[in-house]
């Protein structure tokens, strides 16, 4: 019931393809080159980790890939779309339909129940009440939280909250999920569960995962691990 009809032509393309992407920040009079000519090609359904020391530019890269930040040079193709050409409204539309986010700090909406948080992206897609209900229920079962549907986020543990966030990111079966340090706030055992959950669900929903992480254990699960140093991808 959650199979996303995938266009064959899109399936053949890389999920995302960055060419010579650069980004610089202005700090007072000083320019910080956060990304220096990034080339990155990620095949569909891949589970990719970006590792690197603090300040190396991982978040900057993920923000650009997730279309919540702009780059200054180069090109970025997301599926069949040349992202550089889009205005803000179109970028929002792409995020709405094609990108899921998982944040380090969970970022659940505190006044919404677990159920409502997971339902929200389906709302944005204009999906009808009955289908929404079925998909949210299914998703909550997948992350093992069906018993917690009516809880508020602050009545959950960190690991449970991150599960809700994963459910929220995947409920619309997006082609791309961006996760910036999703396990950084979790203890070792929970982090392991979360990684496995993301990996399993990513495979099930056919989503490409792009994860920034310090976590060593992530490596074994990944199809690709890239190292970032000083704004350069190695």
């Amino acid at each position, binding site marked *: 019931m959650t199979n996303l009809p995938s266009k064959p032509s899109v399936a053949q393309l890389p999920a995302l393809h960055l060419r010579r992407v650069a980004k610089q920040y202005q700090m007072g009079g000083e320019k910080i080159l956060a990304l220096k000519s990034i080339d990155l090609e990620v095949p569909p359904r891949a589970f990719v980790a970006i590792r690197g020391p603090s300040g190396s530019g991982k978040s900057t890269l993920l*923000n650009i890939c*997730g279309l*919540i*930040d702009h780059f200054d040079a180069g090109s970025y193709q997301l599926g069949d779309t040349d992202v550089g050409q889009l205005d803000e*409204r179109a970028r*929002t*539309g*792409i*995020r*709405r*339909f094609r*990108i899921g*986010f998982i*944040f380090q700090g969970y*970022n659940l*909406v*505190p*006044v*919404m129940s677990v159920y*409502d948080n997971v339902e*929200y*992206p389906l709302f*944005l897609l204009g999906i009808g009440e009955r289908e929404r209900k079925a998909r949210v229920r299914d998703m909550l079962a997948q992350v093992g939280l069906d018993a917690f549907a009516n809880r508020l986020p602050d009545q959950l543990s960190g690991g449970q909250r991150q599960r809700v966030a994963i459910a*929220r990111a995947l409920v619309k079966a997006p082609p791309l999920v961006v996760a910036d340090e999703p396990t950084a706030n979790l203890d070792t055992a929970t982090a392991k569960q979360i990684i496995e959950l993301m990996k399993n669900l990513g495979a099930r929903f056919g989503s490409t995962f792009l994860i920034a992480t310090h976590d060593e254990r992530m490596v074994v699960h990944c199809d690709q691990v890239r190292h970032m140093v000083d704004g350069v991808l190695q």
Partner: protein
Amino acid sequence: MKALLLAWKNVLRNRRRSLVTILIAAVGCAAILVASGFALHTYEMLIEGAVHEYGHITLAHPDFFDREEDSPLQFGVIGHEALMTRLAFDNRVVDILPRVSFSGLISNGDKSLVFLGTGADLLRESQNRGQFFGLVSGSIRIPADKKEGNIYALVGAALARSLGARPGDSLTLLATTTSGSLNAMDVEVSGLVSTGWEELDKRLVYIDVALAQRLLMTDRVSTLSVYLKKLKDVEGFRADLLATAPGLALRTWQQQAFYYLSVKSLYNRIFGLLGLIIAALVLFSVINTLAMAVVERTREIGTLRALGTYPAEIVAQFMREGFLIGLSGVILGNLLTGAIIWSLPYFALEMPPPPGRSEGYPLLVSASLPLYVVTNLLIILLCVGAAWAVSRRAARNPIVEALGHV
């Protein structure tokens, strides 16, 4: 519906802050409704007073309203009986009262004072004018035979005081006749009247219209006051009169009610300003509350934007919250107003006399549906507008910045 429920949850997020804002909106709403209800009541009272005093329409000689008379009743209406008979057939008309205005000296033998007299059909005047006739003591008495016997007068309370006269006492009226000679008439004070205007009460004398004509040696009257059944008939009746009584000048009660018009313009300005201040207070309070909410929820806004929510949808969410605050305020405000209106008569509060008048009047407020609708919509609109204003920028801020906000 779900969106409204979410908005309500967001309103309840900071209960105390929202409650204070809702209360301010409620008190503001009630203040506007009570104050304008009071103004409305005052207008109604003044309209009623003016209509009772002048009649709905006053008919007079074409020059009566614009020129000074050189001699008494120079611009009087001739042949008023025929006109009165004709108009009495119109079923919009309640009554037509002839009045003769004159002036002269009134004396108790030792002391003479200037008076402003009105000759009128006193019984019918008091019927039509009800409490506005202002009889404070004594009674209205009409001589059985207007040619002979006792002549009765109603005298202004303040005038009677200056002359030391009480009901039953005798006074002398001295006036110039239409031909320019002097004429005197002894009258018995049958009652004392008060208009509520101290200056008028010092000069006021009422006698029967036929006696006034006898004093002035004329068969004219100064004006005819037409009393209608309904206020809204005035315009139509006026238009008809213009066609059927072309030789006469017409004034509607509004054209005569200078006091009503000036009080109305004064009150409109005072209460308009008051309303503006209250509206500004409500606006600032709501802006303050919602602006704090927007700042506190910066990260949430960033998250929702990242999930693909359009800025307009974020703004709409805050506007729903503003709407709920406004709606709650208005509901509470109307209840509060109802409680105030309901309890006012129990307190029997008296307003001090307005400028120039000698009597206070009870503090009562009127309710009018358009007033309530406009006020309630205005307050809700203010709240929604405030929400729009404070969330517009935040909804378009860079997402990464918003997400980094703590």
